[in-house]
């Protein structure tokens, strides 16, 4: 190593090495796809998780494998947050484009680490008060370690020093992260880390003289760091889910990837289908036999599955469906989040059929929501959809999932012993609660016909008007039967405030942070986050109708949530929509601004 060539000891003003204590830090690492921005953020997240921080991690990548601008973000905070901070505190930029993209968001006292291997930073992109550290990452990595990719470990070494982590914890984090690499790959990463430390030494940045300090947070609670996709898939598994079929699609593929890894070991089956039509029907076939089944997709794939979802509602076949919503219509922006499948999920498909749509707000709710979705589907013999938004791919710190809170609901499944006691068995028996006893293939004396045509109690196709009406009403009653089990909205803020705010999914946490700040400025709001999108629950309607005006914040141009609530009894004149559909998530600061702006117009 020959760090002296790049001596920058004069570059960092000693006055800056005060180790300023932070309890809320947003870091962005960006460059071209394949630069490894995600790796640095993953390593940093892990280190700060170990120090007890709550981490929110997200990425902003183009839909391509290598190349295209890619950025990874991490926010470490003492209080749990669902979005990045208003400003970027530390930027690691592998190219000029990364600085350009981050420029407007850089905090006045931010630290900008810039890869100076190929170019120098054009003036004016970084605030005058910010500290810029040019580092020839790429050149150092190629010169000393023979591969550009090792610049990540080098960057991580420097980053550890900047935020005041001990060298030992940084190194053990790196060793753990790369433990599965071959030694030919592993050793250069360790050397790169040391080179990062050496570079920091030359700049005078050391454990005692760091730029920032992130002191350890007392955190006795057992926690998990997980994405919504993984959590929802786990919930399905925990509730007895044993069959999954899917077709690759961003951002839902991770559900399949997770289950391929873990479901077979639990005796389950995962199939990658030839298309979404096959995926959903493979799952339907499994479900017909009584095995708990699920499929997952994103908007375009769910659109293809619509006929099948309605078929499950009609034929009374349980099915769990995850929709990882992304910016539409059509192919839209595959890697950008949105909440614009609400119309399709609540109203899609031909005909009237019973179904449920849940909207979890964080990975914890994705897990228990996955359990609930599976239980509801099998109790009521209906399709249950989990509508995820950016919560699907973002990683959050959440309380450890409690398996003791999970029980497996067998619903109205009948055994051979039950059947032997019956005079007759009718698959579509008309019952008070709308749910018929269910004998699955293989059960002696339970033979039955399952069909998506209208049918009589025996499953024989019919168009007799009276039977048609009785069957439609029977299916509809199932929703009333399970209504008490559907999660109501979560409310917080000042319940006496005349103005309300509504948002679903990931927006709940953003609204919460915004309202905290608004309260400090003397503005009071009452907030409500619906957790069941379909059927629309009365508490959401009551919330709107009992306030003077309600801001409905959503990520769709068509105000789909507001439209849904209006059609289900919310007073239209009370709703003021706040819409975002540029593919980006709100920060709390942006949310504060837009709410204050709307308040001035009110």
């Amino acid at each position, binding site marked *: 190593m020959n760090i002296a060539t790049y001596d920058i000891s004069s570059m960092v003003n000693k006055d800056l090495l005060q180790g300023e204590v932070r309890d809320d830090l947003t870091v962005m690492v960006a460059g071209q796809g394949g630069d490894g921005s995600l790796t640095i953020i993953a390593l940093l997240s892990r280190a700060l998780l170990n120090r007890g921080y709550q981490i929110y991690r997200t990425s902003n990548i183009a839909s391509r494998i290598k190349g295209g601008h890619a950025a990874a973000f991490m926010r470490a905070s003492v209080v749990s947050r669902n979005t990045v901070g208003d400003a970027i505190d530390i930027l690691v930029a592998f190219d000029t484009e990364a600085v350009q993209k981050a420029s407007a968001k850089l905090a006045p006292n931010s630290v900008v680490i810039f890869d100076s291997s190929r170019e120098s930073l054009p003036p004016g992109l970084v605030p005058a008060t910010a500290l810029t550290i040019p580092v020839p990452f790429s050149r150092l990595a190629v010169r000393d370690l023979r591969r550009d990719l090792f610049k990540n470990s080098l960057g991580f070494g420097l980053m550890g020093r900047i935020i005041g982590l001990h060298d030992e914890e940084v190194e053990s984090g790196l060793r753990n992260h790369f433990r599965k690499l071959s030694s030919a790959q592993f050793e250069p990463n360790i050397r790169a880390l040391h080179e990062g430390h050496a570079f920091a030494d030359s700049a005078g940045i050391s454990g005692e003289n760091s730029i920032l300090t992130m002191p350890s947070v007392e955190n006795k609670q057992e926690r998990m760091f997980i994405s919504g996709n993984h959590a929802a898939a786990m919930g399905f*598994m925990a509730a007895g889910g044993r069959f999954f079929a899917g077709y690759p699609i961003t951002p839902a593929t991770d559900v399949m990837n997770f289950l391929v890894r873990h479901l077979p070991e639990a005796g389950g089956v995962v199939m990658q289908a030839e298309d979404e*039509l096959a995926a959903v029907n493979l799952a339907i076939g499994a479900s017909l036999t009584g095995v708990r089944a699920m499929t997952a997709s994103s908007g375009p794939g769910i659109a293809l599955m619509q006929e099948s979802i309605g078929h499950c509602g009609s034929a009374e076949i349980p099915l769990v469906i995850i929709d990882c919503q992304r910016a539409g219509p059509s192919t839209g922006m595959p890697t950008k989040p949105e909440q614009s499948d609400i119309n399709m999920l609540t109203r899609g498909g031909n005909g009237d059929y019973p179904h449920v749509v849940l909207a979890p707000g964080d990975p914890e709710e994705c897990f228990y929501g996955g359990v609930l979705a599976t239980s509801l589907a099998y109790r009521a013999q209906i399709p249950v959809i989990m509508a995820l938004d950016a919560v699907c791919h973002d990683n959050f710190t959440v309380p450890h999932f409690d398996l003791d809170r999970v029980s497996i609901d067998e619903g109205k499944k009948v055994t051979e012993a039950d059947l032997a006691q019956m005079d007759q068995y009718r698959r579509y028996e008309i019952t008070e609660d709308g749910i018929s006893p269910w004998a699955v293939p293989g059960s002696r004396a339970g033979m039955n016909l399952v069909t998506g045509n209208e049918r009589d109690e025996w499953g024989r196709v019919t168009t007799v008007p009276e039977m048609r009406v009785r069957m439609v009403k029977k299916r509809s009653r199932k929703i009333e039967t399970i209504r008490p089990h559907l999660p109501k909205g979560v409310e917080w803020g000042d319940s006496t405030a005349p103005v309300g705010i509504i948002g679903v999914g990931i927006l709940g946490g953003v609204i919460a942070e915004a309202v905290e700040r608004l309260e400090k400025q003397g503005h009071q709001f009452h907030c409500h986050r619906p957790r069941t999108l379909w059927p629309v629950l009365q508490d959401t309607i009551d919330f709107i109708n009992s306030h003077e005006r309600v801001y409905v914040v959503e990520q769709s141009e068509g105000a789909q949530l507001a439209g849904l609530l209006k059609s289900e009894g919310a007073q239209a004149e009370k709703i003021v929509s706040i819409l975002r559909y540029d593919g980006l998530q709100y920060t709390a600061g942006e949310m504060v601004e837009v709410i204050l702006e709307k308040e001035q117009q009110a």
Partner: protein
Amino acid sequence: MTRTYQTGHPIWCAGCGHFGVQGAILHAMKQTGVELHETLVLAGIGCSGTVQNNIGAYGYHSMHGRVLPTAIGASLANPELTVIASGGDGDGYAIGGGHLMHGLKRNPNLLYVVMNNGIYGLTKGQDSPTKEVPIASPDEDPLDVMMLGLSIQSTTFLARAITTRSDQLNELMVQGLNHAREGKGMAFIEVLSPCVTYNDTYPQWMNKVYDLDGDPEYRNDDRGKAFFDMYQLIQQDRIPIGLVFHGEHASLQSSLLSDLTPHQSLDEQYAARSRQHMKDVLSAYAV
């Protein structure tokens, strides 16, 4: 005895080939000794999509074109079931055509019977992919799915029959059902089953069929030779019938299923093991 649904009466026109197919399915079930409650008969949409009502087993009426994926899902979820998928040529080769090649490629343990009449009967006579001279586009040649099946290297049982030769049809159906039940993979049988109302092909087809089973030169265990001979026959405007191909290949079930694969419910022992597995999975995310 618990009373279950009363088997239906066929809805087909007098003279429809489908009667013979239904008879052959019932014959094969009887011959193999499979019980009704162990059997799931799935059917697509169309005239043929009513056969499940008339068997007495567990019946499922799939969505149009989706009978194969549904049957595969069921056969994986409960490998002890005998799974018989059926449907028409429109259902299986047009709207469901994409699933056919993947079904053949996967070689799941099930019997798939297609009743081919070259026509959409239920919607009153539109061209199907096997129509010899389509009305809308007369220059299109009909699809020959036996050739498709031969070209996919993992197929293990391909046969074609015609309803007018019921002995051969019955025999092939028995062989096909045994093939599936013995875990050898997918038995695919196309039955030429004329529609007397919209596409009465009885006279042409009876003249054109060529019985491979009666040809001592034909080798149904040699994919390459079978393909060549079939091609020659098609060039001569003949329709080969009989056991087209018979081979060995691992079934879908053999690679995907473990001894833990669930059948009907999650019994206690199973739940306990599953719980331990869940704990292990969760621990990987703990911080």
